[in-house]
């Protein structure tokens, strides 16, 4: 199962375009390794958010994970990153 999880990653092009979009200065560039590392950061962020939402749903004894569960874990998630 862990092997399967590994396969899903953000595309490098997507990450680099995202970063470029948000930079205020056009002169700012990104090195190749930085893009790979940022893709990993975002992957961890998404997995962490999902895991916490799943746990919240489990605590409430719900079958599926819904918007309210994501809403409840959001403040702490944002504080942790």
């Amino acid at each position, binding site marked *: *199962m862990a092997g*399967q*999880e590994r396969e*899903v*990653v*953000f*595309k490098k092009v*997507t990450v680099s*375009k*995202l*970063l470029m*979009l*948000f*930079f*205020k*200065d056009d*002169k*700012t*560039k*990104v*090195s190749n*390794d*930085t893009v*790979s*590392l*940022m893709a*990993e*950061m*975002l*992957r*961890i*962020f*998404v*997995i962490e*958010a*999902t*895991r916490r*939402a*799943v746990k919240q*749903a*489990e605590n409430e004894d719900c*079958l*599926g*994970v*819904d*918007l309210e*569960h*994501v*809403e409840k874990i*959001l403040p702490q*998630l*944002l504080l*942790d*990153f």
Partner: protein
Amino acid sequence: MDEKEAYTQRLKAAVHYTVSKLCQSTAADCEKEMSKQAVAAIAETTFRQCEIFAKDLEAFARHAKRHTVTVDDVKLLARRSTALSSHIQQKSEELAINNQELKEKRKKNAAKRKSKEMEGDEADEARETEN
């Protein structure tokens, strides 16, 4: 301005695509199902968080009087959580090792190509003198 908005929307869609795949595989591991709204909320959060990340990275690079964001800036970005910080450190070391291997391979290949070219040149010269 409209064009920029369309570009942003397309990037958002790209993020949403990967986020939904990640969410499904993670939720499947825990035997739960994610609703579409929950996935969309996580995708939107990721997009906004990326903006914060990018602005922080830019500020870090600027503080170090650089125009290029480097791996060290990302390490600084992950400082708030110890586990994340050590994971990122490990990842960056892996990347560095991979890069070194690639470089060595490229060097070897370049050397091989050079020696082959030399042989080719010598053969050409030999042919020319024969003629």
